[in-house]
């Protein structure tokens, strides 16, 4: 072990964990994740604010904090916040960060501003962020459910073409990840109509190729009036792209895919 007599610049900081890890985890159903410590809970919330609505801070979380973390101070704070019923998410996230000594927040001011901005987000935008976060955790079926909820809102027109196009695009990409190419093409077509962006059109054509081959690609390109030069280049790229060559046992690979499917769809 090296010895010296002075401080070292750039050295890491050790933060004492004052609350023990739990034997029994808190289960976050939306993303099938078990949480075993106050630090994990805090880190999760700070990085996934979109997944933490008021409903997240329910009896089961409060029960886990009391019975497993044995943090009665936090339980009392949670009780008070829920009783007051005002800005529950903001106050809960604040309380949990305070309990860990704000180890995951370097700039308190920026953090407070971000929390404030999040609070003022329109409900559809908040729902879109939630759906996007679910995609990040590969919870595709749940994400699609949320995208559909947004698109079923009454005042959809008032949200603007950019917002609607983004929702359709993200939903289309999510369908593609589930290999539901027909649905993916439908969504991406609508996204393209709203966004008029090259990338969306390209996603759409790729999905069509994967769905029905060259013929589907050509039909959709006609429909979208894709620039001929671009269309030929994209088609060449699709033709030249190789299917993955699985090394090893094909059965185990299929097994992994089945597991992935269950995890991603929650079915």
């Amino acid at each position: 072990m090296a010895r010296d007599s002075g401080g070292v610049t750039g050295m890491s900081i050790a933060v004492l964990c004052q609350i023990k890890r739990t034997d029994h985890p808190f289960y976050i159903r939306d993303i099938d994740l078990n949480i075993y410590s106050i630090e994990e809970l805090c880190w999760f919330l700070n990085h996934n604010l979109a997944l933490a609505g008021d409903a997240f801070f329910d009896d089961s979380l409060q029960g886990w904090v009391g019975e497993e973390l044995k943090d009665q101070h936090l339980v009392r704070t949670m009780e008070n916040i829920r009783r007051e019923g005002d800005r529950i998410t903001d106050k809960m996230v604040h309380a949990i960060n305070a309990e860990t000594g704000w180890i995951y927040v370097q700039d308190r001011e920026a953090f407070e501003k971000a929390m404030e901005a999040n609070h003022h987000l329109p409900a559809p935008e908040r729902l879109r962020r939630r759906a996007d976060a679910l995609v990040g955790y590969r919870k595709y079926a749940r994400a699609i459910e949320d995208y559909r909820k947004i698109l079923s809102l009454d005042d959809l027109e008032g949200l603007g073409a950019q917002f609607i196009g983004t929702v359709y695009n993200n939903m289309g990409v999510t369908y593609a990840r589930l290999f539901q190419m027909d649905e993916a093409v439908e969504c991406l077509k609508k996204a393209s109509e709203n966004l008029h962006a090259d990338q969306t059109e390209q996603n759409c054509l790729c999905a069509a190729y994967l769905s029905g081959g060259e013929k589907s690609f050509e039909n959709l390109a006609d429909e979208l009036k894709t620039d001929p030069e671009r269309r030929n280049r994209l088609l060449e790229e699709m033709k030249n792209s190789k299917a993955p060559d699985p090394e090893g046992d094909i059965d185990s690979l299929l097994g992994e895919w089945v597991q992935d499917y269950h995890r991603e769809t929650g079915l």
Partner: protein
Amino acid sequence: MSERQLIVGIDLNRSQPQICYYEREKENTVTAPMKVGNDAASFREIFDGIEELDRRDPEGEADNTRRSELERMAGETMKRALYTLGLDDPAGQIAGITITVPVLTRSVVHLVQSIYHQLGLSGNRAFLQDYKESCYYHTIYQDRDLWTRNVGFFIFEGQDVTFLAMNKNTQTRPVTFTMQEGITVTLKQDRDSWDEQFYNMINASLRQNVFSCIFLMGSTFERSWAGRSIALLCRAGRKVFVVDNLYARGACYAARERVVQRKFPDCLYLGEDVVRNNIGMKMTIQGKETYYPLITAGVNWYEADTSCECILIGKEHALHFLLSRMDESRQSVSVMQLPEMDERPEGTSRLRIHLFYESAKRCVIEVDDLGFGELYPSSGKVWREILEG
């Protein structure tokens, strides 16, 4: 005997184990040889076996079956000896216990810890110390006038006489005590010469140092042959006592001091088994950088065992330990590198830091990568470093 009223000291040795117990309710102290039924309890086979294993396998890596067998035998003998004294439920009856042994080695520490485990006695009421520490506790539980200065012990074992000095340093706070082993003299066969030999030994041992009290132990010593020697010992008003069962009594006093009442918070014994270094870390606690003590100097090495968990934040994969000698205020830093630690997002590396001692001067630090739950599972890596000195 009622529930958890007993304070027990046991002198655990090869052939003449002794027990001293103190009943809190009756304030009554009893010292007796340990027996199993009508026979004297013997740990000879166990100590011989342990020594043999230590000779063959000093690192204690092999022969675990034999070692476990010896530990089981020791636990069984101790249970039966306590049962003979009416202690059929040690865990329920004993409030505090200290076992004292001639010399502490790693194997003996494991042996005693195993005995405690088998008796159902946990670490906060079951202690271990060597004979020298028992001498210290025995002394401080005597009248304070007896230990205003240094205290001497002449220990007779057969024809061998060993001198031990308990030195007192009043310049420190708390006042510190150390044990210094002096000369050993083997008395010749001619009994008529013993007084002269012992007289010379006393002269050589006490020299110009001031001793307020002398204890004489062991059955070889008798007033009948030690006329001149006794006169020399008693010179200048020194108090001289012939004592039996000093080690068991000292162990019993130690248990009282640790469990019942801290009568001497202003005194600290610095034995050879005492850890002399403070070890800590700069930790962030509730957002503030604070010195976090891990090992506090002054505890015996076999009792110094601590662990904590922390989150490491920053790009440097290393832990910084702050060391200071118990008698110095200057701190030095020891850096423990954690090579090949997984790269993870900031704040998602949880580590368990475990410190324990293999001897008074050899501290082992083990660091486990605990991961960060299911978000970033543990790599299973464990880093180990030795801190010498």
